[in-house]
């Protein structure tokens, strides 16, 4: 029996990262509390190395390996590069926060990197098993990260909820996958697509499977009505972890949706389109309306995430290249905005003070007008006010929705954005119109200061010149799907 070794080239970044995680774990055993920065630097180096590897294999081709279970295409490359940038920024932003809260440990770095590896596998999966493998690697790392502060009641409670509901959703997903497998006899996404196209398959079983898969997906995206975990987890988790949960995994979840629904079950578009419409409208409604009532900024941002996911799903509803690329553009814009907003929350918090009440933003303009300005940019971008990137993301989604003929859906989306504008404006109001409650100095490290400034400026520069990112999204979708 001949053993043909698989072509490892498409998976080099994943393999490299796995090796690096092991190195970080081992090295961390030998460095003391004082030299913890070694783990930090090694983690950043790991991400940099992955970025170089991904960059060096950039091509417009789609290459499969491991008997077609793993795929490397332009969409995967772009999403992975975004994941590296996001995770690296998360590490920079959260360093000060975790070190005063006793979480600056080897576990933190290895969990972050394992979660990153999970996302990368999800992004590159072309087989039910690899998808599930990546998803679970990500989810299990996240559960553990939320519980990293063992002594904190809120965090433990959040981790518990997250775990129970997450396991349930994974169960849904597996059940749906098994139905599809039962109906088609295939696990490869492309072969499932072929089998469905073949036509002689019991449609009813497929649809039941699809329902479960969509339910699992919406849980991972935190789309209503499967959103209930998000506010509690966002609120309970340490802010640095919330930042992580709220940002990079959404990129992976987007890839997950694209692989399952478009690549695998693209033939059943008529079936899932209707489900996505319901998810999108409910998410925008619940997210935007519930956010108004929140006084905890992390909870508010959780609901805002839910509404953003509704918008992202709207792009998928259009079910054409135009719509998919607008959703990809949207998710990238969303991640940039989330990073910046949480970075400010992290900056405002200090030892023994979480700064997660919206009133903690009071008078920020008087305390530091530059950070207030950056926060304002983030809020306006989330509200979809030009010339911030959030507007162009919304514009491309709305355009896709209208071109697919859903005029009413576009109007609904616009009305909910109006409601959404209110709570983003409230943050601007607190920062600019009110007097500060404290005059504690805001003293971030130089790297945080630089990165948050770049992040804020990127929101407006990418808005003024959206062509590059829009073109990239379209290219990624066109050459991958």
């Amino acid at each position, binding site marked *: 029996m001949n053993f043909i070794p698989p072509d490892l080239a498409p998976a080099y970044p994943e393999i490299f990262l796995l090796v690096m995680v092991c190195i970080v774990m081992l090295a961390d055993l030998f460095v003391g509390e004082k030299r913890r920065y070694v783990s930090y630097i090694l983690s950043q180096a790991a991400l940099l190395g992955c970025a170089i590897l991904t960059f060096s294999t950039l091509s417009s081709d789609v290459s499969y390996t491991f008997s077609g279970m793993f795929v490397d295409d332009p969409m995967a490359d772009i999403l992975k590069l975004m994941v590296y940038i996001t995770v690296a920024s998360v590490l920079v932003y959260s360093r000060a926060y975790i070190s005063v809260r006793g979480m600056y440990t080897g576990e933190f770095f290895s969990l972050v990197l394992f979660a990153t590896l999970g996302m990368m596998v999800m992004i590159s999966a072309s087989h039910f098993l690899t998808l599930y493998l990546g998803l679970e690697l990500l989810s299990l790392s996240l559960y553990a990260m939320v519980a990293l502060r063992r002594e904190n009641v809120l965090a433990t409670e959040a981790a518990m909820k997250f775990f129970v509901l997450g396991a349930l959703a994974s169960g849904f997903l597996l059940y749906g996958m098994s139905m599809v497998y039962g109906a088609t006899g295939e696990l490869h996404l492309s072969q499932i697509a072929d089998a469905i196209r073949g036509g002689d398959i019991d449609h009813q079983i497929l649809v039941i499977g699809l329902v479960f898969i969509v339910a699992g997906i919406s849980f991972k995206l935190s789309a209503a009505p499967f959103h209930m975990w998000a506010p509690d987890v966002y609120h309970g988790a340490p802010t640095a972890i919330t930042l992580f949960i709220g940002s990079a995994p959404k990129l992976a979840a987007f890839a997950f949706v694209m692989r399952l629904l478009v690549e695998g079950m693209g033939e059943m578009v008529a079936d899932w389109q209707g489900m996505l419409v319901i998810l999108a409208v409910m998410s925008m409604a619940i997210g935007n309306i519930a956010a108004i009532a929140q006084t905890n900024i992390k909870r508010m941002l959780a609901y805002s995430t839910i509404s953003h996911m509704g918008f992202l799903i709207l792009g998928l509803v259009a079910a054409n290249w135009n719509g998919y690329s607008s959703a990809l553009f949207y998710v990238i814009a969303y991640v940039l905005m989330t990073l910046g907003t949480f970075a400010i929350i992290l900056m405002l918090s200090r030892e023994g003070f979480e700064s997660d009440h919206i009133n903690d933003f009071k008078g920020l303009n008087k305390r530091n007008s530059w950070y207030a300005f950056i926060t304002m940019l983030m809020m306006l971008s989330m509200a979809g006010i030009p010339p911030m990137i959030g507007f162009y993301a919304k514009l491309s989604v709305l*355009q896709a929705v209208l071109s697919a003929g859903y005029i009413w859906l576009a109007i609904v989306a*616009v009305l909910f954005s109006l409601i959404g*504008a*209110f709570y983003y*404006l409230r943050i601007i109001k607190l920062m600019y119109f009110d007097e500060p409650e404290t005059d504690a100095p805001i003293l971030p490290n130089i790297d945080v200061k630089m990165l948050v400034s770049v992040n804020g400026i990127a929101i407006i520069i990418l808005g003024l010149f959206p*062509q590059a990112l829009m073109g990239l999204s379209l290219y990624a979708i066109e050459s991958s799907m």
Partner: protein
Amino acid sequence: MLFGLPLLSLVIWIPIAIGLLVLATGDDRKAPVARIIAMVGSVLGFLVAIPLYTQFDPALSSMQFVEKHSWFERFNVYYHLGIDGISMPLILLNCFTTPLVIMAGWEVIKERVAQYMGAFLIMSGIVNGVFASLDAILFYTFWEASLLPMFLIIGVWGGANRVYAAIKFFLYTLLGSLLMLIAFIYLYQVSDGSFSILDYHKLPLPIEPQILIFIAFLLAFAVKVPMWPVHTWLPDAHVEAPTGGSVILAAILLKMGGYGFLRFSLPIVPDASQYLSGMMIALSLIAIVYIGLVALMQVDMKKLIAYSSIAHMGFVTLGFFLFNAYGLEGAMVQMLSHGFISAAMFLCIGVLYDRVHSRQIADYGGVANKMPVFAAFFMLFAMANAGLPGTSGFVGEFMVIMGAVKVNFWYAFLAATTLIFGAAYTLWLYKRVIFGEVANPAVEGLKDVSKREFAILAILAIAVLWIGVYPFPLTEVMHATVDELLAHVAQSKL
């Protein structure tokens, strides 16, 4: 084009760039520097706008000073600028008002001076962008961006109830403009992927979409004008805004709504505009008559002027939907003249407010005894507000009434009641504030206008009288454009 310079880009970006520079001067220790840079920037903004008038060819009805560069190809969006006889005077009005506002806030604003001055400069550039954009997305970007500086100006430097007023202002305007965005995207679909406003002018459309688009545009522009019944945000915003904010709001931002009707509603959906003109005229007449009566009952000076603004803007929308040259040109003149007069009225109230810190009419009386020079200026502007012949207020109203007579006598009759109501509320205000015995210890200690205030009021007085006596330089530049617009609207697009 002067020396091949992209004049329109300069008019937009010079104020914005200098505004950012002013913001960068930082906290109030450097306030004098911020004031001087802001003044230089606003005057520079006005100077670069002057060639737009001198180099303008009034015989052409097409767009002039055109600049067109690709912005993002994905949606065929262009950085496309150009002006005609409708937008050019509005840009000049804006560039003219900004230095006055900076001057008016010179001593009065003591807190966060750099941010105040910077906000006005940035706003000035953005508004120029609104008037000069020929691409729908570019227009929308400027349109929305103009909300933010005003939101901050009202919210940070405003009066007691400023937060409510600022948020109301923002959300009201946002609602209208989001529906306009949907209309733009719809037009993008039916025009096979173009966001060019000029393409939309030529686009044939059936009547049902025309009516829907008209309604979407109407919500956006009616909120901004503001027309009855979506006017309620304006009195709140005016009362709470600082003097400079009120001036820009009344003189410039309201004109964005009027401009929207001329650039979008009338030429893009002419059949719907004709079809619904009865409704528009009715709404305008309600604004003129009913809001005029409301103004009569106000006890707050700023509120009174705010309601009078709404009534005057009713004339503007009335003129648009008469579909004849008198009405349209009269409406244009009325917009510009209202820009000067409302600015002057709010500045006069600002002068009083800075001294007494009250906007209540009852707190004044006998001001003429203490401030004779001010009383003279206020008299002139009050007369102009009432539409006295010889002032700019008369020209516009008279032309619109002439236009209305041609369509229907009763329209003209109702519109003409404004000459009575307008005179009544303005002169009664004047009488209660300026004449009579000194009834109040606060009035006893009043000092007359300073040199700075005198300069501002004198400049505006000259403008008001000049348009009143010799409006030709103003109407000359818009003739060709207005004729072209009327010819365009008369053609069915069905």
